[in-house]
């Protein structure tokens, strides 16, 4: 049973790290402000979510596991809100071109 949990942790944490990498590559390679924001926020939250998922079996008690989930939930809410705000600023700065590529 212990081995299964460890294997689960290894798989989930490596998947989370992969999504972080995808988010960072998206941040660096994408041409447009809004696409970068999309890639970054989505990949980040998924990466953090998988890492928290992987760390859950290692948490001491239900309370510690709950706190881990709380961290992820808060990061999720914060990132979602921030993505909206930053996107509005980016739109505002580069003129009303939500569709076109922002002249960033």
């Amino acid at each position, binding site marked *: 049973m212990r081995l299964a949990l*460890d294997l689960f*942790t*290894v798989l989930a*944490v*490596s998947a*989370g*790290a992969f999504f*972080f*990498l995808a*988010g*960072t590559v998206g*941040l*660096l390679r994408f041409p447009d*402000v809004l696409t*970068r*924001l999309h890639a*970054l*926020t989505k990949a*980040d*939250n998924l*990466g*953090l979510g998988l*890492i*928290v998922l992987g*760390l859950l079996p*290692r*948490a*001491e008690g239900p309370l*510690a596991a709950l*706190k*881990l989930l*709380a*961290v992820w939930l*808060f*990061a999720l809410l*914060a*990132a979602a*809100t*921030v993505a909206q*705000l*930053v*996107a*509005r*600023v*980016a*739109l*505002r*700065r*580069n003129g009303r071109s939500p569709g076109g590529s*922002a002249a*960033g």
Partner: protein
Amino acid sequence: MAEFLVAAAAFLLITVAAGLVRILQGPTAADRMMAAQLLGTGGIAVVLLLAAAAERPAAVDVALVLALLAAFAAVAFVKGATSSGSGDPELPEDDRG
């Protein structure tokens, strides 16, 4: 097991460091803010991994505070970006408070 967690944390740090390149070349301020947001989220993940590796549950609170600060940094950026400091970029320029 702890070694794997520390290795994953190191990998995340490298990923976040690569993400910081966007701050150097980011054309707009929004890009730089996104890289700072990535730093925040990546930092949270690293702190959580190290907390699990070193069996220190107290470090989870550090990650919680870091999540809070990352959110406030972005909100401060948005408030700074709007001329009136109202933080609502949707307001048309002319009738701002």
